[in-house]
């Protein structure tokens, strides 16, 4: 059984008076422990697809299936739990809360999971240490470099130990050195903790060393798959 599947997913938007079809009948599946890359130019629908997988958005038609269970009948609250416990997302623009320190940003994810203050503190520090940022835990995002911010973001994504990590162009704002570091780190997660990685990128070269499979989207459709 695949860990994540999409069955004929379509996503339409109303823009002005027109209907824009961002995804048209996309069916993919991801196995547990796979590192899958989703490629495409901007406007291809890759981010939309990732949002679906992350439970941030619902398809107009079709369904998303996680571990054999469809996300379609889930309530809004159940979807939030899915986002909290089952997936961890990292974004191109990091999406950290600027008024909070690194540690507080990570703690936030733990707070939503109902952890006590003391436990949160300990676990957040532990997570930051794993990404090598324990020394910078009390700094705010504006005081951190891009690479460091993204690492905080990863620590946050890992906080509630999700099975799946979704990354939307995570290296977009990083230099090549940091970018390579990041991908390497994600790969570590996959190898040592059997996490499933789905990464959206437009840079094929970047993920080629690591990805098991790549799926290419164009105009909302799957046009090519490569790899295993």
């Amino acid at each position: 059984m695949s860990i994540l599947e999409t069955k004929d997913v379509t996503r339409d938007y109303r823009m002005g008076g027109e209907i824009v079809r961002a995804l048209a009948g996309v069916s993919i599946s991801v196995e547990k422990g796979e590192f899958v890359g989703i490629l495409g130019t901007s406007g291809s629908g890759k981010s939309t697809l990732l949002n679906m997988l992350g439970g941030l958005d619902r398809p107009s038609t079709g369904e998303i299936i996680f571990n054999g269970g469809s996300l379609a009948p889930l309530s809004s609250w159940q979807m939030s739990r899915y986002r909290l416990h089952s997936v961890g997302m990292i974004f191109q623009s990091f999406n950290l809360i600027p008024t909070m320190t690194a540690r507080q940003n990570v703690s936030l994810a733990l707070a939503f999971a109902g952890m006590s203050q003391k436990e949160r503190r300990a676990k957040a520090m532990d997570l930051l240490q794993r990404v090598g940022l324990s020394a910078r835990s009390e700094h705010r995002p504006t005081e951190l470099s891009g690479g460091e911010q993204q690492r905080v973001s990863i620590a946050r994504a890992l906080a509630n130990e999700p099975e799946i990590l979704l990354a939307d162009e995570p290296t977009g704002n990083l230099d090549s050195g940091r970018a390579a570091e990041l991908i390497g780190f994600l790969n570590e997660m996959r190898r040592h903790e059997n996490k499933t990685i789905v990464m959206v990128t437009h840079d094929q070269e970047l993920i080629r060393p690591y990805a098991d499979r790549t799926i290419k989207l164009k105009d909302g459709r799957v046009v090519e798959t490569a790899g295993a």
Partner: protein
Amino acid sequence: MALAWRNLSQSKLRTVLTTIGVIIGVGAIITMVSLGLGLQKNIVNNALSRLDVYTRITVIGVSADELLAANEKQSDSDDTSVDDPGDTGSAAKSLPIIDDKAIARMQEISGVKYVVPQMSFVSFTRFNNRTRRVNIGGAPTTIPDYDAFDNLLAGTKFSSDDAQEAILTEDGLNLFNTDQVSPFGPGAGPRRVGARGGRRTIFPAAKTEEERQRDASQVIGKELVLLTLKSGVQPASLVTPQSNPLNDENDLSNDPRFERHVFKIVGVKNSVGAQVINLAGNAQVFIPMKQAKHYRESTRDTMAQMTQALAGDPGYPAAEVRVIDPSQVQPVEEKLRGMGFRAFSITNAIDAIRLIFLIINGSLALIGGIALLVASFGISNTMIMSIRERTREIGIMKAIGGSDGEIMKIFFVEASFIGLSGGVFGVVGGWTIDAIANFVVNKWVIASTTSIQFFSIPWYLWGGAITFAVFVSLIAAIYPAFRAAKVDPIKALRHE
């Protein structure tokens, strides 16, 4: 919850301004209602501190005019028109006249300790070389439980019902020490006392306990002279144009028209702790009941005599019924009313006072509540602006797994912080204003030896105010919090 605090402290100025609105609203409620409650407490406590009030029922008798009017009706009822169905035959019989027979009937009611008729009259008395017109009241001497003279400032009670003895009140004593000619004559009212100890006050300071006791004990044993006209004497004009019996002792003694009756002053009644409703018509001088009855007759004016001749005796103007303990007040009062007497006790008055204050306090609280309502709009505004600014933040929170409900909770907590802190500071502020006002009034407006508390803040006032403030702020947060929960995370994440 820590998140909410942090969020609020981000925009301190905005939070503070919003909170000020709540503080003012709560402060207004506290200040105004505490004034109402304080006054109520003072008045009610003042009335109830006289322990005797708990056990006293006042029965009002029939006035001369009523008696005359009733007799009018009696003659009219000879014709066939039935004006008053209840008024048949002897009109006087249906009026609740308090005579000795009535007193005896009241005495028989179970639960009654004693019944004392109001027996008072106006007369001229002479003391300290001054002649004054005073109210003289008769006081019972044969009732063992009668306690009006238990707390004398100086002296003793009457020795017998027949004794030519007098007990003065402090007000009565003061009459003979000043230029006031009668209790309500010229010169009455608070006197503008000059600087007392360097403090100018609007009302003069009271004398100390020692001063009053000293002044009182000085008059014990002295003579008080009651003046009456010899019977059959036509008052006419002064004996000679030069004679001044009002002020000149010799002229008075030589004037054949007057009779002088000497009473010995044996006591001075304490004005502190005095009966609130003074049955003897606010008498300044008390003499034994038997003496009072005797002199009442001889001091009666012609109008009273005419009334009696024309319509009969209206009886005592009132009577005091004392019950054995407070639980008897209600049943005895009902029985008296059942007998047709007009009885009332202070509990009726207290109930009326309570109702009035309920209305007053309620209105004051309402006004304060309106201020709070206005503040709540401020809270709503603050929250909505805050949410607009934090749209991206809300999106992030949702993306990492925060549910709609959790987002809403965060904003509700923020709002309740404003309400709670505004409430607490409002209570503190209100209390401070009360304390300052209390101090100012006690120091500059009245001069009292003990400071009077004008304001009272019972627990239910500040507790209720704070609770109301929190409640109002939560209500104000409903719409904003819903808005926050409805934020679409994807759109929000694109937001800047």
